[in-house]
């Protein structure tokens, strides 16, 4: 096994809301090794993005990490001070957000925004920073970078904005890139182009990457391993081939049954039955899928559910795996 880049252990995040404490992420564990692209897949509200924001210390004021360790580069990010963490963000670990245009300052030239990030982490003479900025654009295969650098976000297409966003995230050669739904809102062709570029860059630089998406097909095409999340819990963590060949968790199986590419016809598409539980409930069961699960047994209500290895590298959090 190659070198571990990121290791998340037992991460829990709670939000204070009017309706009580919302336990958005509960006991999440996963790891990323060098050169690997890990997919985190789940419905909206499954805690994927909250997990990513928690890693980077970007949660908003209503949220707090209640437990866990996030080891990156030999240090626990959750114990780092704001200043130290801020020094790492954008330099050692970067994130690309969904909705690329909104993630750019609307009244600053995109090139200047990339230059801001380079100047922050790697100060130097303006000419050198500009050269690096143009190089970052070129690496994202942006034609005519000198001209594009002077453009404002609203003058560029969505795909181009996302490439700018990725160029910005990669400008300081981070070791880990988190991409949170990077292709939402892009058309299918642009989506493939952006994802290809992302994958190639990660492979070439020997970085690690986390791709957060609700799109199983996208994850299966670009990831090495997939972590499936449901209602704030990791239910399954497996290599892509193993997961698709034999999903062990009833939720994953249901998700795969709902994938358009697998269905013979539109009538054969089966949605996952029920909906995730309200995460503000005080009586959430140990397995948060159990109330939607057709295989539920009294055993499922006993506490102490953990991810267990069912096959090499294939772990599942289910008392009665498939």
């Amino acid at each position, binding site marked *: 096994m190659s070198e571990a880049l990121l290791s998340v252990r037992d991460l829990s995040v709670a939000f204070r809301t009017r309706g009580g404490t919302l336990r958005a992420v509960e006991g999440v564990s996963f790891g990323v090794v060098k050169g690997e692209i890990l997919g985190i897949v789940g419905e909206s509200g499954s805690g994927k993005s909250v997990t990513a924001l928690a890693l980077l210390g*970007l949660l908003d004021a209503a949220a707090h990490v209640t437990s866990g360790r996030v080891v990156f580069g030999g240090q626990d990010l959750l114990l780092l001070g704001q200043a130290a963490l801020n*020094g790492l*963000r*954008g330099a050692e670990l970067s994130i690309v957000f969904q909705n690329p245009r*909104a993630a750019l300052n*609307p*009244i600053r030239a995109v090139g200047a925004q990339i230059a801001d*990030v380079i100047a*922050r982490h790697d100060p130097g003479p303006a000419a050198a920073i500009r050269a690096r900025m143009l190089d970052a654009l070129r690496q994202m295969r942006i034609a005519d970078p000198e001209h594009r650098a002077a453009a404002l976000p609203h003058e560029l297409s969505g795909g181009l904005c996302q490439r700018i966003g990725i160029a910005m995230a990669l400008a300081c050669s981070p070791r880990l890139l988190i991409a949170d739904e990077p292709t939402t809102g892009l058309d299918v062709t642009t989506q493939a182009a952006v994802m290809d570029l992302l994958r190639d860059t990660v492979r070439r630089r020997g970085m690690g990457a986390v791709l957060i998406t609700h799109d199983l097909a996208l994850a299966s095409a670009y990831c090495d391993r997939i972590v499936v999340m449901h209602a704030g819990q990791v239910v399954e963590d497996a290599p892509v081939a193993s997961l698709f060949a034999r999903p062990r968790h009833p939720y994953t199986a249901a998700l795969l049954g709902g994938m358009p590419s697998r269905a013979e016809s539109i009538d054969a598409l089966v949605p996952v039955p029920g909906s995730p539980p309200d995460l503000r409930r005080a009586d959430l069961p140990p397995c948060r899928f159990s109330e939607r699960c057709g295989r539920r047994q009294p055993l499922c209500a006993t506490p102490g559910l953990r991810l267990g290895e069912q096959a090499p590298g294939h772990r599942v959090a289910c008392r009665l795996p498939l």
Partner: protein
Amino acid sequence: MSLLARRLFGVVPTLLGVVVVTFVLTRLLPGDPAAFFANSPTADAATIAAIRQKLGLDLPLWQQFLLYLGALLRGDLGQSIVTGQPVAADLLRLLPASAELTLAAFAMAVLVAVPLGMAAALRRGSLPDHLCRLLGTAGVSLPTFVSGLLLIHLFYYRFGIAPEPIGRIDPFAIPPPAMTGFFLADTLLAGDLRGFAAAARQIVLPAVTMALFAIAPLARVTRASMLGVLGSDFIRAARANGLRRRKIVLSYALRNALLPIVTTLGMIFSGMLGANVLVERVFAWPGVGSYALDALVGLDYAPVQGFVLVMAGLFIGVNLLVDLACAAIDPRARLLSDA
């Protein structure tokens, strides 16, 4: 600079409209200026008619208007009946006092309200946030003549810290040699520090009174605008890229939040021009506001029309500045280059 040209061109019909409206409005006022001007219970109809003829008030309204317009084009704003001086000369003499007061109050308001609104947005529920809300409520609910009198009562009458509210300087003091017409600037230019201190002491209370009225909307807009921008995706992205807080707040957030702030600045400046009339009266400030109020009470048409015209010109000028500032802040508009 096509925007500038277009905007300047658009000023012409606005000014013309102002001229017409003020002319008609002053003629609609109750009372007969000729009778008022005769100012004697023994004045008979013939005397009044003679005065009316002398003032040109016997002519048909449209003729009066054309005469007025012709005079305006020559830069002649007419003659004040009360002071006996040309209105243009009166206004020029009094304008620096008003301008100094307004600018001092404006600067005070901006220096207090913008940082306060920013601090309130950056730390919600903190002391600045509560202060912002308190000032907002107080500023909205206290009219300037009430807050002015209240300040005089407290700081002059009760505590005796502030000087007597009798204008720009002590009536027995010699005004500084006029260069800018602003006593604060003129005393400094003359190297007269004691004079500067005296002028500053006089201007504090009226300026604070006017500033209070402006701080409320400005701080509220700054806070709301900053909150909106701070919650946007690109600020989160800037944080995710490790940019320093200072850079994020001042360069990324504030510049984006500036558009509504600048627009509000224009509005409160215009509002201050109006508030001037009351504040000058309360503090016996010898500015154009007091002058216009006296003229209005004395049915003296020409100064009122001149005052309204000057104010309208300032309004238009301020709005023009606001437009240009917005164009400079927001490159998306591409207003300064030809698009």
